[in-house]
């Protein structure tokens, strides 16, 4: 009872660093066989891969998951390197144009970042949000619909966000007031959004689809950086919303961890009764958080329809909301972590998109990559991250 618990932390630093080094070595093993280095013999890669596995094994004793991750990185990196050295340099250079890959990664990651940040806010307040997918979809359709009707992408984005917020409001009423099961109610919102957007889309646009000339969210051309090799191609012409997404990450971090309101929001997600006992309103906080998450997720959808594609089709989001949810978990319910998750999944999508150079059917298979990756991550890392203690538990004042 009275023992000083705080002092009994074993020295894990060594093992943790070793684990990360191992993971990095695994990635490096693959990386050196790709352009621009394009080493043509697997030997150095295999040495690196073995080192990665060894580091993983050593780290495994104290840092089990990280150690396993390093071992996996070593094996996958080594295998990837062998495959790469057997492929033609030309093909490799087609696929691994790093600047283009990076730009594509940002494109694929942007909607995920928005939705994942929404998920972080929502779950930090103690409400599980499976409905991110539906909120994105609402944003995607009503964003383009609004832009088409009003002729301005700004009002389109606002209308899209309002639609996402409206759906989120339902989730808030259900999970906060009615104390419904949050997974079930979130799931129902996905169906609702699918039906509503599909219905209005067919009713309004019919077989024609959305018009070609809807106003789009502009790209930001950075005059100085634009012509710098690599960097210019990678971020020189990124979309306005991509920049907004990237800026939101530190902003949300400061909000959550450095402001009084952030402190209250986190306390509500951890222990609502404690928050209530000092006069913080659990209901208001959760309402605000859920609706904010709806706005953010919808913005991700807006990006998809009027920034990325310029069109809408039924079920446009195709599961991206779920990947965003996985990014939230992967990132340990932290904004920077969620960004990491979103970028990782964005990268795997970008890679899948470029793979048809190798083989048409492989690129189909590669579509499954983000989901496999998520599954591995959820299986391997989830035990290490800790969700907010009251995540998903309805609160009753009584």
């Amino acid at each position, binding site marked *: *009872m*009275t*023992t*000083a*618990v*705080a002092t*009994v932390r074993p020295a894990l630093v060594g093992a943790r660093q070793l684990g990360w080094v191992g993971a990095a070595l695994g990635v490096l093993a693959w990386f050196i066989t790709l352009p621009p280095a394009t080493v043509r013999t697997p030997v150095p890669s295999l040495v690196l891969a073995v080192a990665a596995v060894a580091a993983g094994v050593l780290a495994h004793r104290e840092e089990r998951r990280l150690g396993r991750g390093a071992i996996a990185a070593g094996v996958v990196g080594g295998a990837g390197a062998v495959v790469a050295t057997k492929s033609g340099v030309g093909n490799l250079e087609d696929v691994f144009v790093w600047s283009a890959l990076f730009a594509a990664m940002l494109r694929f990651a942007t909607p995920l970042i928005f939705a994942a940040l929404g998920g972080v806010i929502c779950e930090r307040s103690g409400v599980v949000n499976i409905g991110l997918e539906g909120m994105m979809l609402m944003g995607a359709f009503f964003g383009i619909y609004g832009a088409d009707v009003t002729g301005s992408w700004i009002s389109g984005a606002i209308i899209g966000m309002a639609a996402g917020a409206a759906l989120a409001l339902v989730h808030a009423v259900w999970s906060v007031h009615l104390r419904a099961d949050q997974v079930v109610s979130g799931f129902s919102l996905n169906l609702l959004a699918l039906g509503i957007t599909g219905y209005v889309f067919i009713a309004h646009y019919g077989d024609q689809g959305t018009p070609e000339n809807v106003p789009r969210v502009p790209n930001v051309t950075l005059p100085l950086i634009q012509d710098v090799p690599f960097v210019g191609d990678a971020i020189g012409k990124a979309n306005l919303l991509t920049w907004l997404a990237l800026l939101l990450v530190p902003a949300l971090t*400061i909000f959550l961890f*450095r*402001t*009084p309101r*952030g*402190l*209250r929001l*986190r*306390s509500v997600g*951890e*222990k609502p*009764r*404690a*928050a*209530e*006992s*000092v*006069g*913080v309103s659990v209901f208001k906080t959760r309402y605000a958080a859920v609706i904010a998450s709806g706005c953010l997720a919808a913005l991700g959808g807006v990006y998809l329809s009027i920034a990325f594609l310029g069109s809408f089709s039924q079920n446009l989001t195709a599961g991206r909301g779920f990947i965003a949810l996985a990014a939230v978990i992967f990132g340990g319910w932290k904004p920077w972590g969620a960004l990491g998750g979103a970028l990782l999944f964005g990268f795997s999508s970008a890679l899948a998109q470029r793979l048809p150079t190798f083989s048409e059917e492989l690129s189909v298979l590669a579509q499954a990559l983000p989901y496999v990756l998520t599954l591995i991550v959820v299986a391997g890392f989830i035990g290490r991250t*800790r969700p907010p*203690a009251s995540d998903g538990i309805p609160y009753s*004042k*009584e």
Partner: protein
Amino acid sequence: MSILYGLYRPDEGEILKGGEPVQVDSPSRAIELGIGMVHQHFMLVPVMTVMENIVLGDEPRRGGLLDVREGSKRVRELSDRYGLAVDPDSVIEDVTVGTQQRVEILRALYRNARILILDEPTAVLTAQEAAELFEVLRALKKDGVGIVFITHKLNEVLDISDRVTVLRRGKKVETLPTAGQTEQSLARLMVGRDVLLRIEKGSAKPGEPMLEVGDLHVRDDRGLEAVRGVSLTVRAGEIVALAGVDGNGQSELVDAIAGLRHAESGDVVVAGRNVTGRGVRATCDAGVAHIAEDRHTRGLVLGFTLAENLALREYRSEPYSRHGLLSIAKIDAHARELLDEYDVRGGEPGKLASELSGGNQQKVCIAREIASNPQLLIAHQPTRGLDVGAIEFVHRRLVAARDWGRGILLVSLEIEEVRSLADRILVIYEGQIVGEFTPDATEEELGFAMTGGRGDRAAA
């Protein structure tokens, strides 16, 4: 008390403060009125720091951001003023229960509370920590703070209070000056009749050892060693009590014996069979029954019917099931028998467990465990949360089981219960058995051993 603090709303009646009627419809209103509360279950966020917990809801700000430095400074000042010795930057889940309680007090003081309500504050404290708490409370009293101290421990009432109000079933029985009262007189007011403090029982006739625990080491959920080399023996026909303050490894020890928790090392031998690490089912098969500490989270499936609950131990064996299919009729008949025998009020086999009162729920648990005809019965806080009548019932059943030749391991936090029931008393402190006593041992002797037997343990 929760009404007073604005967490619940009163159905009727009024609250007066300084002679004026006031509306306390929210905790923030209570705070405005200068009412602070130290809850029985601390209202603290485990993953946050002491400072964050204290300033929550009334944060010092600088430029829209939380002013961490100012917050820490104010907490330190307050803490020093009342000699509380709390570090604002440590994380709540890393500090002791006693420290957490001080954080609760600090939180009220931070909000300039003039009236402090403490709900069963000593339930989780060691005697030493409780003594320290009383010092703090006396200092606060001197400072002009009014204190409402809710407890059911009579000695504490006599020790700390100036006036005492006795409540029974939500009604005030009487308000008296404390001076001149005795434990007996207060106890009479509380229960409305003389408490039967001792249960009638003959002397024990110990037989073969039913449980032998050898040098057992067990870790708790946080990976810390909670049981550190416990050895004990329980014989047939005796009640061995394990006494100790809550959180000294009792739960982990019981779980390890029952097969619910992995033991790092050591042996558990039940009626001659080594069941260490064999899991719950093998342990039960060897003859262990276990009245769980918490009937809601463990002892009962509240959404099951009473019949289903009563079959929890034996649903897999004949006649309750055959070839993997349940015999509903047999299960119901068995349940009806037990509900009758144990006098479970309003107990029909088809009724849900959640529909019973706590006392009757506990009777269901006890009925099931004793009916499984064990060699060893572990009774872990079997009377927790029960009223006097139900406590008596439970005690009689345990003695009866003993007289039937069962070995009984009683784990209890109540010294009175231990002394009245046990044939031998073992005291556990910080995961070790620190002494063995006979039932004649005085409360002081036991209490001394339960708190480590020395007075120099400062809070970490």
